[in-house]
């Protein structure tokens, strides 16, 4: 269990660093484009970076799903929990239900990742751009794969708790 915890924390740390770097990159590049387009271009007639708009859109896409993997790590996904709230006091039942919903969520993510993989295999290409569309599309199976790993780890913790093992509380972001 300790090893799993270490892997879990390490994975989340790596995701956090990547997210922060991507966010800063996005911010700097987007701001650079605005400043260039509105202040420098009218004076010099030189256009802003042509590849930047494509990169900004795709990095936003990757950043968004990567944030989703971190939301899975911290158990911060938006959910309805209308019924689960009723069972929150009954620890064993609550754990059992959590195992059930996580298992189904893993199954759904496996299908999403598989769909993504099929799309990548089609190797869609474009006439121009920094990367080919299929190279950006790798983000879908890769990041939903990461969500599966986080969900599976949470599932193991819940199962261990159900079997009576002492499991640490999920860290807060």
């Amino acid at each position, binding site marked *: 269990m300790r090893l799993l915890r270490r892997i879990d924390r390490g994975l989340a740390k790596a995701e956090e660093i990547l997210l922060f770097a991507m966010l800063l990159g996005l911010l700097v590049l987007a701001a650079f484009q605005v400043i260039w387009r509105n202040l420098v271009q009218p004076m010099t007639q030189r256009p802003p970076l042509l590849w930047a708009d494509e990169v900004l*859109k795709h990095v936003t896409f990757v950043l968004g799903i990567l944030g989703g993997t971190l939301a899975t790590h911290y158990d911060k996904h938006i959910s309805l929990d209308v019924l689960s709230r009723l069972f929150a006091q009954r620890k064993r039942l609550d754990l059992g239900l959590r195992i059930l919903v996580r298992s189904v969520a893993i199954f759904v993510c496996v299908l999403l990742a598989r*769909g993504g993989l099929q799309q990548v295999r089609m190797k869609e290409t474009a006439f121009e751009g920094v990367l080919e569309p299929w190279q950006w599309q790798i983000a879908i199976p890769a990041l939903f794969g990461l969500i599966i790993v986080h969900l599976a780890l949470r599932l193991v913790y819940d199962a261990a708790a159900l079997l009576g093992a002492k499991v640490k509380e999920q860290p807060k972001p």
Partner: protein
Amino acid sequence: MTTLLVAAVVLLALLGMPLFAAMAGGAMVGFRTTETPLISTAIEIFRLAAQPTMITIPLFTFAGYLMAEARTASRIVRVSRALLGWLPGGLAVVTLAACAFFTTFTGASGVTIIAIGGLLYPVLEKEGYPERFNLGLITSSGSIGLLFPPSLPMIIYGIVYGLSQSPELAMAGAFEIDKFFLAGIAPGLVLVGTLSLFSVMTGIKHNVPRTAFAWGELGAALWEAKWEVPIPVFLLVMIFKGWITVGEAAAVTALYVLVVECFIYRDLKLFGDVPRVAREAMILVGAIFVIICAAMCLTAFFIEADVPGRLYALLDRYIDQRWSFLLVLNIFLLIVGCLMDIFSAILVVVPLITVSAQHFGVDPYHLGIIFLVNLEIGYLTPPFGMNLFIASFRFQKPLVTLVRAVLPFMGLMILVLVVVTYIPWLTVGLLAIIAKIFLGKAASAAP
């Protein structure tokens, strides 16, 4: 079999399965019936990478979180107090104004109740406002700025509406988020104004002492908050003068707020605080983003199976007037609002109702505003309104106390909802006027 699978997905969603998984699961069940290949889910999700407005979600959220972590709340409260504190019930009006400002950036994610509520609740109590009023005021103010730009729910509504437009709707023109920003201003002011009036009356009734108006204090407060107070105004002007797009505005705002909070006010440390704030903001962004991904799949299925068209056919059998459609819509949205959070509600419901709303002649911008006002009320509606739980946790009060406290505020908000719903001019008419002023030419409100 399909019905059974759909029922299982709904049950799992109610049992707390992440909503993105429930929605994607629902879409997959749907695709199974239409024999659509699995790859369609990825194709739909990847369509998001082509949306230029998506960049606004991480950047505005980041800016909002930076302001929430810095001492922006105290500075905004000081300005509002210096400006409005002399009114009867002044501090309560200050609470409304400060919360409205703050929610525009934090998107009613509960941060407003924690940040501003925590700051003002003890002061309201000290000044002699009744406890029940204070709790109701802060709980209902937690989502009050949603109609003002650049609120995140408005952006998401715009994106989802744009993506779920039927071909005939899209032919009529694109839904523009910048116009939607303008459309929210008048209804938002009516909402804040109505609750302010109630606060003034409460102040008079309970003889709450007023603070004298002082030009010196107002000047000092404005000077202290000079880097933050003008942000929404600058944003609006720059967008509507056509100097920058909404996406560019998000980049400029995020960079500006980062520089202001780290290097001018020095409330946050670039390497000590900013990575933590960025992580918290990106977790929210991620949670919303994966739901948008799933909603793309679900919407594609809805369109493929003509679910919105069938829903309209069903409604058309029982409803033939626009006013009755709006009544049914409001009741439906109030129920949705108390069961779902605002982002999920937008993502699930908007694609379903666009076709019906169009057939009943409801303007898309008017529909959006009705939608958001309903969901604002939904935040307060027992038994599952999110603000009730956040305030209960923050102020350590039983849920029942909070439910009683928000009732008068809810009543007033429903009154405003009726006004906004049945006087479309408030949204659409004023939108045309404001757009004309900003753009310098006659602008049609409808897309």
